[in-house]
């Protein structure tokens, strides 16, 4: 147990530093903040009344969904694929590091990055400061299914090129609630997708209704997806880790 904690801690330290050193990771973390800065200042600046309110809600959605999908799919998946491509993963394994320790570190770093980026986006889009902790918590918990899926796909990816292809389903799945208003009938389904509950909770927070009974269904959906992802991860991990 002590060795496991020591190794996971060492990996965590390395992976956290790598967020700033790795251009892919850095871009994935900065892009959502950049998008929010652009939308808030270039598009939202001239809006007033109901339009401004609706746009503000849209930015809350964008913040949560962009951050979750970009950091989880691009950063987590690509960094694991890079480790495989450059043989640093094999070198780690030969130093008696297990795949579980590596994945735990990568997953925790992804969630930490999501927390920081969500917080930055929240401040950029000008939401009230008192909602910040709840917003970050929604973002982190709601991102767990995508992070777990990305970790599994990272094991499957042979190199960074294949990671790019494998990240597409995660991107589509994660960003799907954004299109809820654009496709007929999709708004009925979107709240029940893996990031749908998180999105609904974010909107309720922005409307001041987070701590009402309206939040129960999206909360249940979010937690259900976390549970489903955890079970699927546990079932698929052993086989994928062995084969890949």
């Amino acid at each position, binding site marked *: 147990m002590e060795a496991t904690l020591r*190794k996971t801690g060492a990996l965590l*330290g*390395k992976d956290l530093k790598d967020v700033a*050193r*790795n251009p892919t990771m850095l871009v994935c973390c900065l892009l959502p903040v950049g998008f929010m800065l652009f939308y808030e200042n270039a598009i939202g600046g001239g809006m007033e009344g109901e339009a401004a309110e609706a746009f503000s809600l849209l930015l809350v959605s964008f913040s949560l969904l962009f951050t979750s999908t970009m950091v989880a799919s691009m950063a987590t998946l690509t960094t694991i694929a890079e480790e495989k491509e*450059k043989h*640093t993963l*094999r*070198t780690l394994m*030969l130093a008696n590091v297990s795949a579980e320790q590596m994945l735990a570190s990568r997953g925790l770093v992804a969630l930490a990055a999501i927390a920081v980026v969500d917080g930055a986006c929240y401040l950029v889009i000008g939401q009230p400061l008192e909602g910040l902790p709840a917003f970050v918590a929604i973002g982190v918990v709601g991102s767990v299914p995508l992070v777990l899926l990305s970790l599994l796909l990272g094991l499957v990816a042979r190199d960074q090129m294949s990671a790019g292809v494998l990240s597409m389903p995660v991107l589509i799945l994660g960003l799907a609630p954004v299109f809820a208003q654009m496709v007929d009938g999709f708004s009925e389904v979107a709240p029940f997708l893996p990031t749908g509950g998180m999105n609904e909770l974010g909107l309720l927070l922005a409307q001041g209704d987070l701590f009402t009974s309206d939040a129960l269904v999206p909360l249940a959906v979010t937690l259900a997806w976390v549970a489903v992802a955890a079970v699927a991860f546990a079932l698929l991990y052993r086989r994928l880790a062995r084969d890949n």
Partner: protein
Amino acid sequence: MNPLLSMEDVSLSFKAKRVLDHLAFQVERGECFGFLGPSGAGKTTTIKLLTRQLVKDSGRITLFGRPIEHASNADYERIGILSDTSALYERMSIEDNLRFYAKIRGVTGNNLPTLLERMNLADDRKTLIKNCSKGMRQRAALLAALVHGPELLFLDEPTSGLDPAARAEVHKMLRELNDAGTTVFLTTHDMAEAEDLCRRVGILDEGRLVACDAPEALRLRFAKNEVLMRLADGRVVRTSKDAAGAPAVAEALASGGCLSIHSVEPNLEEVFLELTGREF
């Protein structure tokens, strides 16, 4: 005898192709054992079996005196491995990589300055791996495998791609480690390296161990029945080294003009040719 590691009748196939065929050898504690063979002979596969990267089809492997299936993580903490693809993190410096591996191995890393000095990397310790030459990367990867002071070191082609000076540094360090008691299991296709470093060598051909002995013993086993005398007048005289050649040797010695006399022994490449009938 209680060998540190051993293989008994170990076979492994990849689909229909048999890559290791009834392999049997043992390595004693403190020994530097060389595993020789051409590319594709099964050297790397053997190391992969010994380091849990592959599982044998049949036979018995023991590590630290117990079957490899029962080897614990603690046993693997006593091992250092430099594989043919070992690589360090490119966006980290040599020193940061080694400190990271020291943390992974649960050691302080107080020995890092000494290790860097011995590998001639002290001045480059702050250099990012992505800016290092292949030789520097290889030496740094070797240090990463050594940072915790392993009892048993697996080295897969450790000097592959190194220039002569870097090879000499690695050889010197391996000799020092072996002298200090570290057991070294080394694969190489460089016969001279094996002769230089190893107390015993196993020669592998198409997954079969065709010979296993001290390099000197192997060379003597396949030595030709011939002695070669270099005379002061510039002539080189060859004669048999049995009784039939004795008069010629005696005559050369009696004349006082014999500069050198030695038996004709094959090098390990010629031993391989003798054993397999094929060029190395």
